[in-house]
């Protein structure tokens, strides 16, 4: 059994420390990078954002199951037509996933100017999406459909608001990645961009899921 020595002789044989860990290096990091960055912390950043998305997913799954349950228990559920602008917003968000991917690859190639432009474009598209969601709300309000009008509208506002808030958080993250100095940090801008992009794609996918839920659940 690995890691368990039972006699002095066997202790000798356990020198290979197994699958864990690299060496403690005092000379400044992964050979070849020479900039103080560490692959371990790069990996940790990806692990971290993945876990965060797990937590956020559970949050939205709880809301989803509430939606399904609430719709099932009563007879007072009244469907209402979804504002058409939602489809335009979806297209904008999908496009922004495309641009953020392009931006990330540009950075990987070293095309910093292209990265900055595409990154800013993504943020802009994100803001347009949020603006479009607010337009959708305005449309509904004009038709007399408010938060408390009906459980169907309650969920609409709640889901779009919470998704929108998370997306705004993503826009803040994009700004952070673009604007901060990454000098002397454990990870580089490339990792920061990767983390932000993973979050962004998730928000995109989440929106598609929520839209499907709202459409099919009507």
């Amino acid at each position, binding site marked *: 059994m690995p890691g368990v020595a039972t006699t002095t002789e066997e202790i000798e044989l356990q020198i290979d420390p197994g699958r864990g860990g690299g060496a403690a290096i005092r000379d400044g990091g992964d050979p070849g990078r020479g900039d103080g960055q560490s692959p371990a912390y790069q990996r940790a950043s990806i692990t971290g954002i993945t876990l965060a998305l797990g937590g956020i997913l*559970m949050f939205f799954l709880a809301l989803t199951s509430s939606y399904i349950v609430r719709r099932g228990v009563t007879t007072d559920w009244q469907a209402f037509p979804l504002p058409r602008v939602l489809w335009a917003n979806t297209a904008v968000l999908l496009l922004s996933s495309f641009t953020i991917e392009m931006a990330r690859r540009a950075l990987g190639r070293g095309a910093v100017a292209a990265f900055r432009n595409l990154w800013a474009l993504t943020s802009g598209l994100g803001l347009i999406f949020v603006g479009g969601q607010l337009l959708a709300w305005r449309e509904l309000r004009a038709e007399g459909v408010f938060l408390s009008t009906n459980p169907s509208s309650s969920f609409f506002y709640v889901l779009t608001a919470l998704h929108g808030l998370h997306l705004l958080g993503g826009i803040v993250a994009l700004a952070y990645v673009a604007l901060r100095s990454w000098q002397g940090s454990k990870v580089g801008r490339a990792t920061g961009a990767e983390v932000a992009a993973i979050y962004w794609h998730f928000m995109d996918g989440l929106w598609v899921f929520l839209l499907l839920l709202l459409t099919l659940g009507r």
Partner: protein
Amino acid sequence: MASHAEAVHAHVHSAPTGFIRKYIFSLDHKVIGIQYYFLALFSVFLGMSLSLLMRIHLVWPAIHLPFTPGGQMTPEQYLALLTMHGTIMVFMVLTTAPQSGFGNYFLPIQIGAEDMAFPVLNMLSFWTTFVSLVVMVAAFFVSGGAPIGGWTSYPPLSALGEIVGPGQGAGQTLWIVGLAIFCAASLLGAINFITTTIDLRAKGMTLMRMPLTVWAWLITAVLGLLAFGVLLAACALLLLDRTAGTSFFVPGGLVVTDQVITWHKGGSPILWQHLFWFFGHPEVYIAILPGMGVASHLLSTFSRKPIFGYRAMVYAMLSIGFLGFTVWGHHMFISGMSPYSAFAFSMLTMSIGVPSAIKTFNWLGTLWGGQIRFTTSMLFALGFVSLFVSGGLSGLFLAQPAIDLALHDTYFVVAHFHLIMGVAAIFGIFAATYFWFPKMFGRFLNEGIGKVHFWLTFIGVYCIFMPMHFLGIAGHPRRYADLTGVQYLSSLIPVQRFISIAAFITIGSQLLFLFNFLWSLWGGKKATEMNPWEATTLEWSIPSPPPFDNFAGHVPTVYRGPYEFAVPGAPHDYIPQNLTPAEAATGLTASGAPVKA
């Protein structure tokens, strides 16, 4: 899963300077762990004070108690104490001290890391938790006072506002907001713990060489990551029902004191229960798993024997974690839920007793054949085993819906969750405190006072909670502010009196601990040796207290598992994880000097 953690000197943030950076907004996981511990310490004394007032009022209602304007405590004041006692104990004590307190301090060290993966996030987690505590405690001071709906806060009682009771206005709102903030803080903490354990283990620290404390903290963090988001969603919806006229949880046609509630329709109170308990059941495992890890760790260390069945212990904790997400409905047998799903939940709940039983067998197996050293921390670890057995077995009654028909919402339930969660987890915290205090503060807690503290507490908690089983069997409902309403309670009042006296003594004994703790911080016997307990894990290979980056630049390599005790042929009865095979075999370093164990 590769985990090549290069501990690069340049990566670790440099030693902090200045009081604010060092002690207030510290990024050091050790300081943050201590901050969480002090938050929990404050909270536990607050929580105990609340329950002391409750216990006195229940059996001596004529006594004029402090903080009760007008002299005698009103029922709503009792219920407010009850609500805040449960909330503060579960969240601010049991979810913080074992995990965010000790876990923060020792997880990185025990895996050979120089800090948590995300130190800034760690600092934010603590201060967010602090804010949530402030918001919650503020509920006491607003008009109407703290909420009266219990820590479970079922709507419509928690959704309709002040018309259904005092404290249900601003107090309830603050409670929900405080809890939501706590959820966010916990999620941040969970991300840190899991990432650190996956990605920052030192060379040689494979998963199966991790101390069981680390496994417990890891699994607990996973539970938290998946559960707290659900509670956050529930809080959001409840807040909207209260303030925005939605009806997620509140049906129509309600009448409160002859007033028809026209602004709600069609909601489901049971929906709240599903959401709350989907979180709530994993939460109780979050409260107890770290204690189980500590118990395993200490029982092995102080029996001078390897843990019995290391792998089984790991699989048991994984099963408990997984199954913990499937059993939430056992809180809802009586709720109006489908009786068929009730039965399914029952079967799953009976099953979750199996891994718990395996852990108990293995604890006994660890002690068997040992050379037991009765330090105060070991006493609490042994007490943990006894309490875990007692509290766990009563669960077998409640897990059966037919029996739950009689015992649900009675003092039988109160006995069960206090023994298995409240008291056992507290014993885990005490055991960890007496064990790790010298490492954290460079001084020992006084063992003599510690032993008195142990005996008074161990006997005291059994005197408090064993009789409660009988109260429940006799039909005594819980959350009753007064025992003179329902007539059949009169014959049970003497039992309640006994419990209150026991509680008074037991809570008083905790002052011994508080005195010991505070005094020893500055006046305790100095811990000059790095490894006074002759333990094997990495924290005992560094000075007490440790340097800011834990290993002073020399991150260890791990050569063996965490419980190498009594290895035949070895020079000492323990082999630290970081000794090279040559050092372990000879007890000497390469230069010929004795290994500083």
